[in-house]
């Protein structure tokens, strides 16, 4: 749950680790995430179509991964952090039955603009599903 308190820029430091976020990857999350992001690509909801593409099961769409990366950072930063970017590279697919764990740390910090860069990874049993970075601006 997102803390209602937004983290102040002064409270943060480079090297600080964000609390882990463990996401059970379910058929419901993959399906629901795809439809909530208006993505009807069959590989995200139709197991037979996914197999035709060479996948063992339906797989999470990148728009859901983007949302979960936002959630991971926001749960730490609080509700009023302003996102400047979310940059993600996908690796191992997220299939139902797996678990994805987000870890991340503050890698850059700019005093003048109160901007932080968080480097993050979402790892499942096969490796990194997503790696990337997120830039947020925090209140003073």
């Amino acid at each position: 749950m997102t803390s209602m308190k937004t983290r102040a820029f002064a409270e943060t430091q480079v090297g600080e680790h964000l609390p882990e976020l463990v996401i059970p990857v379910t058929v419901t999350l993959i399906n629901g995430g795809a439809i909530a992001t208006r993505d009807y690509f069959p590989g995200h909801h139709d197991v037979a179509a996914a197999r035709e593409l060479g996948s063992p099961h339906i797989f999470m769409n990148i728009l859901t991964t983007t949302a979960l990366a936002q959630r991971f950072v926001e749960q730490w930063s609080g509700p009023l952090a302003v996102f400047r970017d979310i940059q993600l590279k996908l690796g191992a697919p997220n299939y139902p039955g797996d678990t994805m764990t987000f870890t991340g740390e503050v890698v850059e910090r700019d005093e003048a603009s109160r901007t932080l860069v968080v480097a993050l990874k979402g790892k499942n049993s096969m490796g990194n599903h997503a790696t990337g970075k997120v830039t947020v601006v925090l209140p003073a």
Partner: protein
Amino acid sequence: MVGREYGRVYAWDRVNAPMIRHWCEIMGIDNPLYTNPEFARQQGYADVVAPPGMLQVWGMGGLDQENFPEGSSTENNFEVLKVIEPHGYPAVVAVNSDLYFDRQIVAGERLYFTSRLDSVSEEKTTPLGTGFFVTVLMTYFSQQDAGDEEVGRQLFRVFKFKPAQRPQEKPAAKPAEAKAMKRPLPGVSDDTRFFWEGCEAGKLLIQRCTDCQTLRHPPAPVCIKCHSFDWDSIEASGKGQLYSFVVMHYPEVPPFDYPNPIGLIELDEGVRLIAGLVGADPATLEIGQRVQVEFHRFDDQQNLPQFRVVAA
């Protein structure tokens, strides 16, 4: 085709609270800025704010991925995929999405985007298959009376490919599940079996020439000093020092944790071996540090010697 610009594609719906709420619900996001108009107004916004991760969502076609509202460009910004596909590359998967936000977007705004085909890679082979990386850049705008305003940008990259393999359909009763990666097992030969059996018994064994008593590691059939074929082994103290080390950062190969420090250990008995370092902050490792062996069991199938830095 690379460099081609594609015209406006309008969002089906204005940025709106119901779509935001549905998205927040499935994603597990409970920030009141997105769902509570009163909270949003207290923060100075006219209505609820759109989550930044939804930027691309507003411009999605929906059930028919190429069906957009009247006035939208009829050209498909990913038309190059249809050029590639007939050459035997049926599958597509998204590999990069970089979203950049110029400002917060508030419920009620009407968005559109334009695109440019940025690049098509050479043919590449990945674990998924062989194909091409296609990168499209999108710019998102909000329609405003005083002139439309850029609100964000996106780099979207897909891999258009020929799948490496097509799994056989499995019975419905036995759903396919992702298999967790295990550590690779060592190749065991008649020369090395004693070492791995020693590990299973929690002993670090070093090969010894029974003619000249010279110790050797890694195991080999012949004495490096007197060329005798006769050997036995002794149990090492497990104490030594860090002779050298590396810290693996990239690529991250499962199931190992990264950064992954690996030591070249000089045992007090005089031979060196390579092993993982445990409990170490890679930043504090130094050549010459004292280390002590520990055995750890992995995947319920192998015991591996690993070393921990200890006080001198």
